[in-house]
């Protein structure tokens, strides 16, 4: 209980700030319109107008909520204007890419832990690659794959996979190395083979590390899928909604897409967190 009240206070304060910002940023347009029409506006008139413009600089929260309601609940899911449809396009690319990236990352991590040459040659590059803006190559991947005839979900998934790949490698290597010498010695006295050591000690003890990087990875995957939708020229997906909104000055649409993307990210990270809790609980590793 003593966490809910402060969080609520902050959220309410943010919404109040948002309303104040909406009034302040949209007032100029309202005054210009009134001056052109030769009208005098009262203070309440300005406030009422700033919160209900068609293309405000900063739409008020209730306008965004109304747009969200219209484009999710009131549109059929197959409609091109439905956010559920666009969200699904982005989500499918995210999940496919996340699966590819995580699978490849875990495989590489296993290789790195068991092969010293691989460790010494690949690991520094895997760490260094986290300091470079990988996202910059997204447009190129999309366009190049498009030119050799690969379209649709796969190019975006590749970008997502690429972004979630390195956090998983780094976290998984750390996790597979986390059993200490004492535990490894114990398995040696049991006469365990390399495979058994891996299955019964290394893999289970890597789980907390794996889930931590999965959370980072799935958030990165979503960003990758959204950015991957930009260079194709605003066809489908949440990224396309952002771009077409910015082309046509539809600020309400941009904010609705943004909130949808945020909700999607929160849901994805939340699901990974739930799986983490359930898994670690069954393994008796809950903290």
């Amino acid at each position: 209980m003593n966490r809910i009240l402060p969080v609520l206070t902050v959220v309410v304060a943010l919404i109040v700030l948002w309303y104040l910002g909406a009034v302040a940023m949209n007032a100029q347009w309202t005054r210009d319109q009134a001056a052109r029409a030769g009208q005098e506006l009262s203070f309440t008139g300005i406030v009422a107008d700033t919160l209900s413009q068609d293309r405000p600089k900063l739409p008020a929260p209730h306008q965004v909520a109304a747009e969200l309601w219209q484009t999710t609940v009131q549109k059929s899911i197959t409609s091109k204007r439905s956010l559920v449809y666009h969200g699904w396009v982005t989500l499918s690319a995210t999940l496919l890419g996340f699966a590819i990236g995580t699978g490849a990352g875990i495989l590489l991590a296993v290789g790195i832990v068991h092969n010293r040459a691989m460790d010494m040659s690949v690991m520094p590059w895997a760490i260094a690659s986290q300091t470079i803006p990988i996202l910059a190559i997204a447009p190129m991947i999309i366009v190049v794959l498009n030119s050799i005839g690969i379209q649709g979900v796969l190019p975006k998934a590749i970008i997502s996979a690429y972004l979630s790949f390195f956090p998983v490698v780094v976290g998984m290597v750390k996790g597979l190395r986390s059993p200490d010498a004492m535990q490894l010695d114990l398995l040696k006295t049991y006469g365990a083979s390399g495979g058994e050591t891996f299955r019964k000690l290394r893999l289970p003890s890597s789980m907390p590390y794996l889930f931590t990087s999965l959370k980072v990875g799935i958030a990165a995957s979503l960003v990758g899928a959204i950015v991957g939708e930009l260079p194709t020229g605003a066809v489908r997906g949440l990224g396309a909604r952002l771009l077409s909104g910015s082309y046509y000055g539809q600020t309400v649409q941009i904010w609705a897409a943004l909130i949808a993307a945020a909700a999607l990210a929160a849901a994805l990270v939340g699901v990974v967190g739930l799986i983490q809790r359930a898994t670690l609980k069954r393994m008796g590793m809950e903290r």
Partner: protein
Amino acid sequence: MNLVIGALVFWGAAWWVNLRIANGRGRDTRAARLAVPVLFGLTLLVLWEGLVRGLNVPGVILPPPSAIATRFAASLPILWVDFVQTFVKGALSGYVIGCGAAVATAIIIDRSPFLQRGLLPVGNFIAALPVIGIAPILVMWFGFDWQSKAAVVVVMVFFPMLVNTVQGLAASTAMQRDLMQTYSANYWQTLLKLRLPAAMPFVFNGLKISTTLALIGAIVAEFFGSPIKGMGFRISTEVGRLSLDMVWAEIAVAALAGSAFYGLVAAIEKGVTFWHPSQRG
């Protein structure tokens, strides 16, 4: 065909050398730790060059490294202009403003446990969101030039930095704070002489995460509109003209700038937090 075979032979030879070094006697020396990854990187470049040239892969799909290097050398002035526009004006100014504001905010909310309990979960939540999506809005507000890119960077680095700094300010132990109390140190003295220094490992963790975020923010924000210079602008337009060697040159600049920026912050960290166990080695 010879090129392909040559590249594969080089791969095999480099692999053998790396195996020898990694399992040999001098494997824990500094030279070995440097030589193995460098050789691996070199192998990748040779394979890339050999396969692309040998199999006649068209330049619009994947240009060979030599072509990229030639292009890089030939268009240094353009690359420099883009670098200044995106990195120095956009990313760096946003980075300084965002990190500075986050540290200041952390110090302010540190005095109120209520605000801390409220802001930390919200900050953690926002730090996990695809903040980059706010780029089109900020481009609309602040115009096409570097100011909007700096604004995107500010928003992107603010929350990771805030969360880390707040954690850092809580890092000093009760014993240490008691000691400051017995010295009758006031709030500001405790802050400056104990808690801020103790927070530095956390602050630098946030600063290091933010270096990558800053560059990503500045580049991606340019996809939503920019003047006719900048790394993100160049990447998106040259991709459209299918001159991929220029795109790769631009990516090379981004990679170099990103790792140099990270390396610089890491070096400063080494100097500032010399007392921390992770730095004493």
